[in-house]
């Protein structure tokens, strides 16, 4: 019962956050100077022409009124049409989503596997040689931004040791996920940037758990091997899970850069193109989609952490 009311609160908070984002998106794209008039009018338009376009696009009406109308349409799934191609924004998003997921899913799996394996190994032997080496490496990875890691991979795997294609050119009629060789580089780039922070959190949590009284009691009672590792890691998972969900949500930001660099035809690539071309309805629709996806991931992470925590509190021995 408490979980249900907690969940309602969290969903309401996420919805409120999405409304804040929609206001920011609307304000940035339609109220700030770089609005749709510049795109439609072209660079040579006179002031009178610009004013006429402003009226025809309905941009002379008050911003609040336009925002309410826009958000009302968006709730019904109508995000308008692209200024440049005239395609429906919701259609464009539907097209692009699959390619983004084809890159993000393998990256997320790699992050989880690397973080759990390396984080547990380092945390169980905190202070050891492995632990220090991993700590230095992940610090370097966390410190470098995604575009540098992705460019580094691009240089190594296309110029010096050409085994993977540099640009994701998907044959017509195929989907990206049918070509693992095209997915590999972007997914590895995202995973390298993301796993460091998740791994360090799990490491810290595992190291803390091995120092507790119940862990010592288990060791003295002869709990060894896989059983001991599982006991430590499962008890350390809840706090790290929250961090993992933040890392996975952050992947969506990294995917914008990585998709742009590798020409992956995904949501992030489309968004950076739309910003460059000032295609206002497309920018609005794509950024709302990415924002909603971020919130959904964080919500799922919170829910998992809460359920793990609940399980722990009722576990015999109160292992916390």
């Amino acid at each position, binding site marked *: 019962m408490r979980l249900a009311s907690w969940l309602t609160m969290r969903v309401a908070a996420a919805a*409120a*956050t999405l409304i*804040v*984002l929609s206001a*920011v*998106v609307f*304000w*940035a*794209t339609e*109220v*700030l*100077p*770089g609005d749709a008039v510049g795109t439609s009018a072209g660079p040579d338009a006179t002031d009178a022409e610009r004013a006429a376009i402003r009226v025809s696009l309905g941009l002379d009406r008050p911003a609040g009124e336009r925002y309410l109308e826009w958000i009302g349409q968006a709730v019904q799934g109508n995000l308008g049409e692209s200024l440049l191609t005239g395609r429906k924004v919701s259609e464009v998003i539907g097209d692009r989503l699959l390619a983004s997921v084809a890159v993000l899913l393998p990256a997320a799996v790699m992050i989880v596997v690397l973080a759990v394996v390396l984080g547990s190994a380092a945390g169980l032997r905190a202070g050891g040689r492995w632990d220090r080496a991993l700590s230095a490496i*992940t*610090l*370097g990875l*966390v*410190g*470098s*931004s*995604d*575009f*540098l890691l992705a*460019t580094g991979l*691009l*240089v190594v795997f296309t*110029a010096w040791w050409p085994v993977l294609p540099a640009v994701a050119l998907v044959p017509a009629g195929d989907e990206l996920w049918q070509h693992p060789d095209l997915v590999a580089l972007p997914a590895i780039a995202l995973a390298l*940037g*993301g796993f*460091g*922070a*998740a791994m*360090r*959190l799990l490491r810290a949590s595992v190291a803390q758990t091995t120092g507790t009284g119940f862990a010592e009691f288990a060791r003295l009672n002869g709990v060894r091997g896989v059983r001991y590792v599982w006991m430590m890691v499962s008890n350390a998972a809840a706090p790290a899970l929250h*961090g993992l969900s*933040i*890392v996975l*949500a*952050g*992947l969506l*930001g*990294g995917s*914008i*850069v990585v998709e*742009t*660099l590798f020409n992956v035809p995904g949501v992030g690539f489309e*968004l*950076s193109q*739309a*910003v*460059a071309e*000032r295609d*206002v309805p497309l*920018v609005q629709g794509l*950024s709302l989609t*990415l*924002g909603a996806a*971020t*919130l959904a991931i*964080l919500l799922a992470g919170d829910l998992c952490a809460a359920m793990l925590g609940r399980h722990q509190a009722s576990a015999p021995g109160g292992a916390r």
Partner: protein
Amino acid sequence: MTPRRLAVLMMSSFVLVIAVCGPWLSAVDPNTPVAGPFEPSSGAHPLGTDVLGRDTLARVLDGGRALIMQAAVATMLGSVIGLTVGLGAALTRRRTVARFAVLGVDAIAVFPAILLLLVLAAGLPGGGAAVVAASVVVSVPFSVRVIRECTTAIIATEHARSAWARGDALMVRLRHDVLPALAPAALAEAGIRFVAAVQLAATAGFLGLGASAPAANWGRMVQENSAGITVNPLPVLVPATLLVLLAVGVTFLLDHITGPLLGERDRVGPDLVGVTR
């Protein structure tokens, strides 16, 4: 200070000096083509030429200052807001107001920095303003939380409680009891945000946002010269190496300082993953 930390400190300072003083050191104009594209290094052009045949060394010297300036402005603005909201939330007795202030600051920062950067760049094209604004928005919650947690711990100490009990004015308590103890944490978290802001500014250049085309920018150099990586890798490698040296150097230095100060959660900053990524 151990020799290793000294070496890392020198390395990071070296990058900062190049970035800030570079435009004064360069004798060649960074925007004029001087030779063919992607020529390898020679006596006249120590780092060769870039995609348009411009001198790479001149562009490297010219391309760091904008990043550092944007990051510095964003860090200072972030510190001002972070200190104001964080101290206010910790010191006020209106718990509900404080809670909602922190919640409000947190709300928008759950979104990836690059998403906010692109949205703001759509409205503020061709300038550093979008970069600075995005950096501030995504990093302020981190600052607020660190400052608030540290301040809450500080005002619970004996000396701070006795100052409060004998009726010292708020400003006196801030000046003598809170701020001196808060300074190390505030500086460390500002350092973390500075690195994140430099990375975000470079990413903006890489994505073609920020100052418009001919202006040199380490992030944009990586992007525009990656086509010629097999012919002359230096126009990509040199700016990329400088960015990595700065980020890793400062992160390494702060890691040792901030470990005991901030705790694991803040020091690797999963929240900061959202700031740089």
